[in-house]
C-alpha cells in the first residue's frame, strides 16, 4: 500500500529556509577539526562541559575527605602502574596525597528516598519508545496477505504473522476472525489486523503470550526488527466488542511485566540499552497509562545509566563515579536506596582516570609475571595503552586502528575502543565476575563466534565523547587470557590536548 505525497508537501518543502548551515559555521567546524582534540565549543556547550568537569573534580576531591576510613586504592593518583585487576582480589591501597578541599558542589545525587511522579508520556517533551493512542484492529481478507506463521494461543485464538505483499519485509500480526456457529467458533476468511510487529527475517522470533499488565487480561505480541530493535504490542478486548482486539499500549524496546509495588497489579518496566541504559516504568492510573523516567528520578541521566535487574528486582543507578542500588517501595511509588547500596568512587573503576605522562614503557604485573610493555597512542581516540612487548610471553600482537589483538601461550584476545555514539549497545548482562568495577557496563555473549564474550567498560574522561573499551575473548578461556587483558585496560591513559 503506497500513499501518494500530499499536494501541500510542495508548498511546505523548503519552507524552513536555505543556507542555514552558514559559511561561518563551516569555517568554525573546519577550524576545530584542524586542531585535533582541542575542540572548542560555543555557548551552552562550554557552560555544560565546564559544569560537568567542575562537579567531577569536586567529587574526586571531596569524597576522600568525607570518608576518612575508606580505603584509598587509587591507581589514578599514583605514578605506579595501575594494579593488575584480578576480579577475585580487592584492589590494593597505595597512599594518595591529601586532596585540597573544594567549595564546588558535588554532582547531584538522588535522595535516599525518591518519590516517583508519574506523568503522561504523550505530554512529555522527552523521547520515549512508547505509544498509548488507541488503535482498533481492522478486518482484512486473509487472502490479501502472505501468511508466514500461525501462532495458536490457547483460549485466545489463532494469530497470523504475515507480510502484506510478496517481497515485503515488514511483518504484521493479525488475529483470525472467528464466526460463532452452533458447535462453537469456526474460522473465517478474515483477519483482524493488529499492526506492524517486526521484520520478516525475525519471523521466528515473534511470540504471542498472555498478559495481565496493569491488571487487565490481554495478550502481548513481541517481534523484532533489528539487532536492538523490538516491538511489543499489548492487545485487549472490550465487553462491547469482545472479538475485536485493540491496542492502547505499544513499546519499542524490551519490557518486563512485574509487580514492583506488590499491590497485585503488574507494572511494565521498559529498558533501553543504547549509548546509556534507560529505564521507564509504566502504570495504569485512573485508566490512563502513565510513566516515570527512572533515569530522571534517580538523577542518572546521560552519561549516567540505569539498569533494572529483574532477578533481584533492583534498579542500579550507574553514575560516573559510583553505583547506587534502589528498590521500589511496597504499595508506595517511591524508590528507596537499599542497605546494600555501594558508594563507589572512581577508585573502584577498572580503568584509571590518568593522563598520559610521557612514559614510554611500563611493567605490567599479572599473576606474578612481569610483562614489559610499551606505550602506543591510539590513532582514533584520545587514549593510549601500554601493550606487552612481543617475546616469549606475547607470541603475536597486531595493532588495530581501534585497538589490539594478541596471542599468548594461554590464548588470544582483543581489546578495542569504540565511540559511545557509534551505535546502540547490544543486549548486555551484568556478570558477577566483573560486577565490582564501577565502569563495567555489561557483557555480550555471541555463541556462534570463537571469541564469544565481549565485556564493555565505559571510559568517560571526556564526558561529551565517552568511549567503550571492549574486551573480547573466549569465555571458556577467561582465566587464561583475561588477567593480562584487564591489566592493559586498567592502564589506559588519556592523552591530554596538544
Amino acid at each position, binding site marked *: 500500500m503506497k*500513499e501518494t505525497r500530499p*499536494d501541500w*508537501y510542495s508548498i511546505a518543502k523548503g*519552507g524552513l529556509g536555505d543556507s542555514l548551515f552558514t559559511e561561518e559555521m563551516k569555517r568554525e*567546524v573546519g577550524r576545530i*577539526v584542524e586542531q585535533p582534540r582541542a575542540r572548542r565549543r560555543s555557548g551552552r556547550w562550554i557552560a555544560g562541559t565546564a559544569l560537568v568537569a567542575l562537579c567531577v573534580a569536586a567529587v574526586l576531591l571531596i569524597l576522600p575527605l568525607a570518608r576518612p576510613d575508606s580505603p584509598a586504592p587509587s591507581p589514578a593518583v599514583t605514578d605506579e602502574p595501575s594494579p593488575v585487576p584480578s576480579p577475585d582480589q580487592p584492589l590494593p591501597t597505595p597512599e594518595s596525597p591529601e586532596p585540597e578541599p573544594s567549595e564546588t558542589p558535588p554532582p547531584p545525587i538522588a535522595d535516599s528516598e525518591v518519590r516517583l511522579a508519574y506523568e503522561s508520556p504523550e505530554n512529555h517533551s522527552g523521547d520515549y519508545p512508547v505509544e498509548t493512542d488507541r488503535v482498533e484492529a481492522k478486518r482484512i481478507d486473509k487472502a490479501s496477505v502472505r501468511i508466514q506463521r500461525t501462532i495458536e494461543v490457547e483460549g485466545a485464538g489463532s494469530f497470523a504473522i504475515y507480510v502484506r505483499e510478496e517481497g515485503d519485509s*515488514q511483518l504484521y500480526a493479525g488475529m483470525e476472525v472467528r464466526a460463532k456457529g452452533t458447535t462453537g467458533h469456526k474460522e473465517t476468511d478474515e483477519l483482524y489486523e493488529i499492526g506492524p510487529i517486526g521484520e520478516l527475517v525475525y519471523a521466528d522470533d515473534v511470540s504471542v503470550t498472555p498478559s495481565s499488565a496493569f491488571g487487565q487480561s490481554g495478550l502481548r505480541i513481541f*517481534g523484532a*526488527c533489528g539487532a536492538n530493535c523490538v516491538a511489543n504490542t499489548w492487545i485487549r478486548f472490550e465487553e462491547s466488542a469482545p472479538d475485536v482486539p485493540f491496542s492502547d499500549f505499544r513499546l519499542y524496546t524490551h519490557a518486563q511485566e512485574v509487580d514492583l509495588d506488590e499491590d497485585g497489579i503488574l507494572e511494565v518496566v521498559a529498558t533501553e540499552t543504547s549509548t546509556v541504559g534507560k529505564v521507564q516504568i509504566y502504570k495504569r492510573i485512573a485508566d490512563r497509562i502513565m510513566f516515570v523516567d527512572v533515569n530522571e528520578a534517580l538523577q542518572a541521566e546521560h552519561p549516567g545509566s540505569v539498569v533494572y535487574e529483574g532477578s533481584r528486582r533492583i534498579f542500579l543507578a550507574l553514575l560516573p563515579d559510583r553505583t547506587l542500588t534502589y528498590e521500589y517501595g511496597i504499595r508506595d511509588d517511591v524508590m528507596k536506596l537499599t542497605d546494600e547500596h555501594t558508594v563507589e568512587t572512581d577508585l573502584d573503576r577498572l580503568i584509571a582516570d590518568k593522563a598520559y605522562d610521557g612514559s614510554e614503557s611500563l611493567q605490567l604485573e599479572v599473576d606474578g609475571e612481569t610483562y614489559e610493555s610499551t606505550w602506543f597512542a591510539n590513532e582514533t581516540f584520545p587514549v593510549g595503552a601500554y601493550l606487552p612487548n612481543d617475546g616469549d610471553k606475547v607470541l603475536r600482537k597486531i595493532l588495530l586502528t581501534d585497538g589490539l589483538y594478541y596471542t599468548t601461550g594461554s590464548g588470544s584476545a582483543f581489546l578495542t575502543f569504540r565511540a559511545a555514539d557509534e551505535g546502540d549497545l547490544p543486549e548486555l548482562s551484568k556478570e558477577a565476575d566483573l560486577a565490582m568495577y564501577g565502569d563495567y557496563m555489561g557483557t555480550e555473549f555471541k555463541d556462534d563466534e570463537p571469541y564469544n564474550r565481549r565485556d564493555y567498560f565505559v571510559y568517560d574522561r571526556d564526558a561529551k565523547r565517552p568511549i567503550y573499551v571492549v574486551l573480547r575473548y573466549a569465555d571458556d578461556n577467561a582465566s587464561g587470557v583475561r588477567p593480562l587483558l584487564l591489566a592493559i585496560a586498567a592502564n589506559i591513559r588519556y592523552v591530554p590536548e596538544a
Partner: protein
Amino acid sequence: MEPDYLKHVESVDGAELRQLMDRYGDDVWKYAYVLTKDREQAKDISQEVFIRAHYNIRSFRGQSSLKTWLLAIARNQSLNYLSSSYFRKIGLRETVRPRQSAPSAESAYLGQQSAAEIWDAIFGLSKKLREVLVLDLEHELTVQEIAQVLNLPAGTVKSRLHRARKEVEKRLKGWKQ
C-alpha cells in the same frame, strides 16, 4: 549522489569535510531544528554532528546512506539535548516561524495555504509524528531510511506518517474554517 568512496575510508580531510557540509549541512541543521525548536541549539548541534562525523567516519560502514547516518547522529545529539533535565525544566523554546513562501497553484485542495501555516501545523504535532513527517517531506527519505534513523519497524513509520499527514490536514482545515 552519495560519495561512495566514504564507505571505506578511515578519515576525511578538510576538503572532504567541507564537501559534506556543503551537501548535508542544511539537512542536518533543519532536522536538529525540527527536533529542538531552537535555532541556537540547531546551530550548535549541526556543527557538532560534522565534528563527530570527522572523528568517527570510520564507523560509517555504508550500510545506510551518508545522509541518514548524519541525520541519525543529529537525532542522538538533539535527544541528548532534549533529555537534559536542565533544558527540559527551563523549557528553552522559541516560537517557530518558518519563512514565508509563495503558495502553489497545486494547493487548491487546501485553499491558498501558505508554507508558514503548514509549518505551524507541523510544529504543532507531537515530536514522534513531527520528525517522521519532516524526514519524509523535507529530507525525502524512504520509509526504510526513516526506520533506520529512528530504529523503528518500517510499518510503524508508515502508520505514524499516515497519522501525521492526517493531523496536519485536519489542523489546516480547522484554521481555514
